[in-house]
């Protein structure tokens, strides 16, 4: 293939706990003509350490990230918060290479770099979209994910009330201030349920884990599905729910 050489940065969370999202990215990006690689030496961007106050531990991870991803045209992550960590924080942690600046969250990469909005996806479900704080405010992805979703055939997009409110995850915040996090989650879930959607999607598995975890406890019947999985789904190769 002669498409852009794209390095996948699924993030440690997705690599470990949500492999379907990363596989979906491979399918999607290859379908769009990218030459997808997965540098096996990658581990973690250091976000959790940095955000919890362990910048000294995050620093070598930032340096390692720069080494691992050196030489790729683009680096794409299915996570607004990890892409934000790399692009906005790594440069302050170490004089990391330009790898940080070539790192994108998936929707940015599709719309800004590849210049596509209609990725040829098919997903015949009612969907609501949670924008996630870091995609929204740190990266400024704006309405790119919504534009991508609107172009998906069969998909009915239902606006999420108070969409821009945080879901309450915040990494170790969910543990250190568990009750407050839960109160935030409760409001988010109410908004999600009010939409009557079958699927709640987002560009970040950490927020989806929070929202999905809460919904599953409620037996709410709304499924969390990462944006990448929706965009990878086609008539021929439709999305299937993992058990």
């Amino acid at each position, binding site marked *: 293939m002669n498409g852009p050489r794209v390095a996948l940065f*699924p993030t*440690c*969370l*997705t*690599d*470990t*706990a*949500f*492999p*379907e999202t990363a*596989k979906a990215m*491979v399918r999607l990006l290859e379908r769009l003509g990218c030459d997808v690689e*997965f540098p*096996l030496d*990658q*581990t*973690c961007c*250091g976000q959790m*350490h940095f*955000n*919890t*106050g*362990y*910048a*000294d*531990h995050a620093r*070598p*991870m930032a340096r*390692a990230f720069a080494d691992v991803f050196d030489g790729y045209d683009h680096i794409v992550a299915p996570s607004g918060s990890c892409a934000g960590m790399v692009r906005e924080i790594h440069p302050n942690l170490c004089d990391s290479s330009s790898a940080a600046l070539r790192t994108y969250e998936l929707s940015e990469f599709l719309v800004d770099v590849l210049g596509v909005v209609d990725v040829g996806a098919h997903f015949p479900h009612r969907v609501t979209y949670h924008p996630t*704080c*870091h995609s929204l*405010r*740190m990266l400024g992805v704006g309405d790119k994910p919504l534009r991508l979703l609107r172009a998906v055939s069969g998909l009915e997009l239902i606006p999420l009330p108070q969409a*821009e*409110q*945080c879901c*309450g*995850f*915040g990494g170790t*915040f*969910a*543990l*250190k*201030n*568990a*009750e*407050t*996090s*839960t*109160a*935030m*989650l409760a409001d988010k879930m109410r908004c999600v349920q009010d939409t009557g959607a079958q699927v709640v999607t987002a560009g970040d598995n950490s927020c989806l*884990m929070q929202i*999905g*975890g*809460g919904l*599953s*406890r409620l037996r709410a019947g709304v499924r969390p599905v990462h944006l990448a999985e929706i965009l990878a789904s086609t008539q021929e190769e439709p999305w299937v729910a*993992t*058990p």
Partner: protein
Amino acid sequence: MGRNPVTWLGSPAFPDAARRALDDTQLRGNLRKATTTIRGKRESVVSELDDWEELRRAGESIKDDVLTNLDTYLERLEAAVTERGGVVHWARDADEANRIVLDLARQEGADGVVKVKSMATAEIGLNEALADGGVDAIETDLAEVIVQLGNDRPSHILVPAIHRNRAEIKEIFAQMPEPPDSDDPRALAEAARKYLRRKFLSSKVAISGANFGVAETGSIVVVESEGNGRMCLTLPETLITVMGIEKVLPRWQDLEVFLQLLPRSSTAERMNPYTSIWSGVTPGDGPQKFHLVLLDNGRTSTLADEVGRQALRCIRCSACLNVCPVYERTGGQAYGSVYPGPIGAILAPQLAGDLHDEQAASLPYASSLCGACYEVCPVRINIPEVLTHLRAEVVEAKGKRTPEAMAMSAAAWVFGDRRRYEAAQRAGSLTRFLARDGTLSSLPWPGSKWTDTRDAPVVPKESFRSWWRRNRG
């Protein structure tokens, strides 16, 4: 030097205080209603100005100029105020400021003073200090009256009684000589008007804070709504203004920026009802004695922190509180300081200057880092950046031997090498660490904090990288 009263002695750490606050459904209802109202209004008055971002950038840079040349501007302000007949005092800390004000009040023979709401005097606990010295301080801002008469603590920078609804306020006002006859806000305001009128007319000394002090001209600015500020700034013979040293502005012209940024960010109005500006003493008009107390109380040590100093740009508009999802749920008292919400989480611990204190050390963690505060801040304080910076200082203060520090070191060691990372992935321990996974619905602490209210994701049989190796490797 005593303990800095900016954080309240004996307050529990944030998570504990928050837990209690979350149980108070009345409080949550009041807060939700108030913050939702003000958010919508702020957005609409801000969107009226298409140069809002340029104003924010100007505000940020003017304040950075102030912080860079603080000594010069303070000396200039001092000279200008003195030249116009005012007297300038300097206070290193709360005790010193309180002593200066108490001595001045006594010199005037006052056993009571009227006060305009001021964060600086709340921060130093002036009212308590005056009371100890036999001087009765009467708050005149409606919300402060509610807090003072309710024997309560403030919970918001701008509206200290935001946690009270009209019915509760009526209860509190029942102790007035002429109590309100209904809980209609108009009746409540009328009751406060009557209650305070005599006090304004009979007080010899007033105490105020300052929103801005212009170095170039010696002008002091107080921004308010009710007119209690005008009463205090106009009627008594003596006026004492306590101003944090970071409130100085270089030039008169700079007001053109802040008089736009502040009202739209705070009360979400195009302009607040009253703004008073004066310079020293004006013969025949207003107080004939004017004292300006310049307060440090932890500001110079905050200034010394390269990342943390941006908190000193704050103009106390409270926009960050109003959009904060954590504040909306816990209210302000959970922060244990006169400065609650996102600004409190970065300012209070810095002013207090002691991260070994458990309560102060818990504040930088009182945030999900969602960034809504940074987005609205009129002087572009990158609050999430300061939060993570202070978290690093907390970690350093606590040392390497806490369970958290050890877990973090272990995780860093695992992430430091791909083989260790993959081994941990295979053993399932990484999933537990990252996704708080395990036996699905109940996990040991701290994972239990997660599974108390949410299910953890199901462990996948195969990580992505194993799949990649199998299929693409």
